[in-house]
C-alpha cells in the first residue's frame, strides 16, 4: 500500500509543521510588547486588579508552561477566548471562516479561470498577440500589490462609476438562512435572488482583486510549462506521426502541464483560505484575515494564534489533498 504509507508520512509531516508554526507564533505573540490584562480590565484599573487578571490568565507562568497549557487546550478542541470579542475563539472563527472560504473560492475559480487557459494559448505561438498580452498581464499580476489594486478598483467602480456597491462587507441585503455559511450558496438554496445578487455584487471586487494578483504567477507558470512541453521530444514525435494539432495540445500536452500547474493552484488556494489579510481589510470583509489583523492590533493572543494555525492547516491540507490526487492521477507515481 504505497498510497497509505505516503499519506501517513504526509500526516506526520503535517503534525511537525503545525508544532513548529504554533511554537513560533506562540513565542512571538508572548514577547511582543503590550499587556492584554489592561485590555480586559481597562487602563484605569488599579495594580492589584491587573495582577489578579494576569494570574487568572496564567501570564505570570514561564513561557514554556504557558505553551504546554495552550497546546493541551488546543488538542481538546479549545482555542481559548478572545479578550476583545469576549467569545470563545472557535465561535469567532466559525462565524468568520465561511466569509474567507467564500472569498477564497470565488477568487481561486476566477484566477484559475483566466490564467490557465490564457497561459496555455499564449504558449502556443511565440510573439503572437496573446503571447505579448500574457507578458503584460502576468507582469502586472505579479507586481501590483493587492491592497493597492483593491483600492483602485473601489475608486473606479464604486466611487466614480457607481457600478459596484459600497465595500462594506458581505451583503447589503438580508442574510440568507445559514446552511453552508457561504452567502451566495445559502441564498441559492433559499431561492432568495435578491440576497444572491447582493452577495455576488459584494463578492465581485475583492474576488477580482485577488484573481488578478494570484492569476499573474499562475499564468506565468502555466505558460512556462506549456512552452516546455510543446518543445519536448514526445510532442515532436506525435507531430511527426501526423497527430492533429488539436490532439497535440489537448491530449498530449495539456495533461503534462496540468499536473504541475494544479499543484501551484492548490498552493494558491491554500494561501487564500488562510485569510487574505490585506484584501479583507480593504473591503471590510469579515473573514479570518481581518479577524487576525484586528486581534493583533488589540494584543489579543488567542485569536492570532488560532488564525495562524488555521492558515497553516488549510495550506498544508489543500496541498496534501492535491498531492494525493496526483498520486492517483499521475501514472509515473504508480508503478
Amino acid at each position, binding site marked *: 500500500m504505497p498510497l497509505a504509507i505516503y499519506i501517513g508520512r504526509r500526516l506526520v509531516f503535517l503534525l511537525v509543521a503545525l508544532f513548529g508554526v504554533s511554537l513560533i507564533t506562540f513565542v512571538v505573540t508572548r514577547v511582543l510588547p503590550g499587556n492584554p490584562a489592561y485590555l480586559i480590565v481597562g487602563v484605569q484599573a488599579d495594580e492589584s486588579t491587573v495582577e489578579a487578571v494576569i494570574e487568572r490568565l496564567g501570564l505570570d507562568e514561564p513561557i514554556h508552561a504557558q505553551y504546554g497549557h495552550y497546546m493541551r487546550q488546543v488538542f481538546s478542541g479549545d482555542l481559548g477566548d478572545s479578550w476583545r470579542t469576549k467569545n470563545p475563539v472557535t465561535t469567532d472563527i466559525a462565524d468568520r471562516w465561511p466569509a474567507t472560504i467564500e472569498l477564497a473560492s470565488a477568487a481561486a475559480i476566477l484566477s484559475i479561470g483566466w490564467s490557465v487557459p490564457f497561459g496555455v494559448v499564449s504558449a502556443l505561438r*511565440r510573439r503572437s498577440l496573446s503571447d505579448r498580452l500574457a507578458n503584460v498581464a502576468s507582469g502586472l499580476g505579479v507586481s501590483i500589490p493587492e491592497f493597492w489594486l483593491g483600492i483602485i478598483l473601489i475608486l473606479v467602480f464604486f466611487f466614480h462609476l457607481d457600478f459596484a456597491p459600497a465595500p462594506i462587507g458581505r451583503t447589503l441585503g438580508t442574510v440568507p438562512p445559514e446552511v453552508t455559511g457561504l452567502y451566495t450558496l445559502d441564498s441559492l438554496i433559499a431561492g432568495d435572488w435578491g440576497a444572491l445578487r447582493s452577495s455576488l455584487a459584494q463578492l465581485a471586487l475583492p474576488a477580482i482583486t485577488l484573481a488578478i494578483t494570484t492569476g499573474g504567477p499562475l499564468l506565468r507558470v502555466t505558460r512556462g510549462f506549456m512552452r516546455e512541453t510543446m518543445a*519536448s*521530444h*514526445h*510532442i*515532436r*514525435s*506525435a*507531430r*511527426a*506521426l*501526423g*497527430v*492533429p494539432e488539436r*490532439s497535440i495540445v489537448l*491530449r*498530449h500536452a495539456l*495533461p*503534462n502541464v496540468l*499536473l504541475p500547474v494544479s499543484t501551484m493552484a492548490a498552493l494558491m488556494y491554500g494561501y487564500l483560505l488562510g485569510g487574505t489579510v490585506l484584501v479583507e481589510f480593504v473591503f471590510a470583509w469579515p473573514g479570518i484575515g481581518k479577524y487576525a489583523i484586528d486581534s493583533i492590533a488589540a494584543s489579543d493572543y488567542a485569536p492570532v494564534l488560532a488564525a495562524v494555525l488555521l492558515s497553516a492547516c488549510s495550506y498544508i491540507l489543500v496541498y496534501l489533498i492535491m498531492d494525493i490526487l496526483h498520486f492517483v492521477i*499521475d*501514472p*509515473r507515481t504508480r*508503478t
Partner: protein
Amino acid sequence: MSPAAAPDATAPPAVDAQPGAAAAPVLDVADLTVGFGSAAKRRSIPLQGIHLQVAAGERMALVGESGSGKSLTAAAVLGLLPEGAEVIRGSIRLDGEELIGASERRLRALRGGSMAIMFQNPRASLNPVLTVGGQIAEVIRVHGSAGRKESWAQAVELLAEMGIPNAARRAKDYVHQFSGGMAQRAALAMALSCRPDLLIADEPTTGLDATLAQQVLELVVERVAMRDASLLLITHDIAVARSHCERTTVMYAGRVMESGPTASLTGDPKNPYTAALLKAFGTVDQRRMYAIGGVVPTLLGELAECAFADRCPQAGPECRDGVPELRRLEDRRVACVKA
C-alpha cells in the same frame, strides 16, 4: 528481400543502376537548400543543395558527423523544420508527390501515413502520461477508419510483433515502465503502424548499449523489409551503415559528399571526406585513433568552395574554385574535383 541478410558487409549493390531508370524512387530529394532567417536577413544556410534518392524497398544510410545536416534533412522531408527555418529552393518528392508547398493538412496525412520516423532517445519520444498502446492506437485512428477497439487491438498486435512480451498487458503501461530497448520497440511499432512506404530512423540506437543497439537495428531492418518499405537510416557511425544498408549517402556541412552502394563506397571511397570518416571510425587498420583535424565550417552563407577543403589532406588550389558538383562517377555520385 531477405531480412536475414542484413548485417552483412557485402550487401548486394542490387538497386544501384536506378537513378533515372524505371521505378521512381520512394523519396527523391533534389537540390534541397534550407536557410534560417528570412531572405533579407539570412542567418545561416545549413542545407546547401542536398540530393538524396531512396528507391522502393531500399535501405539507405545517411551518414555524417554532428552538424552535417542529417536530422535537418529528415525534418525537411517531414515538413517539420524548426521555427525560423525555411526551404530556399529544391524539391522533395515522396512517391512522386511534391512535398514542398504542400498543405499542412496533406503533410499531416502523409506523416505517420506514407512516411514515418523514429527518433533517438525513445523514452523521451513517448508521452509520459498516455499509455504506450493508446499512443500507437491514436496514430492508427488518425490515419485510417479504425475505431477505438480495433485500433487498440492493432496496437497490441504491433507491440507483440516488435517482440514485446505480454503485449496486451504492456500496452496499458506507461513509458516509464519500459526499458530503453522496449521503448524503442514501441516507437518502431508506432512508426510502422500505418504501413509507411518510408521509415526514417534518426539515430535510433543512440543511448542503447551495444548488444541492444544491434538487436534493435536488426529488428528495424527486418520489420521494414517485411513491409517492403524503404528505410532511411540516419547515423553518424559509418560502420552501422556498412552492416545494415545497401546504399549510403555521406553528408558534410550541409552537402552530399558521396553517395553510392555501401560496399563499394566504403571499400573504395572516392571522396577524401568519406575516406577520412572511415578512418576515424577505425574501419581501416590503424594503431592510433584517427581524428579529422579542424571543425565543421559554420554555414553563414552559401559556400564558394569545397566545404571540406580546409580539413582535407588532399586539398589543392582547384578545390577553392567553386563548390564541387555532385557528379556521377562509376557506380556512385561524388562531389570532389580530385576524384
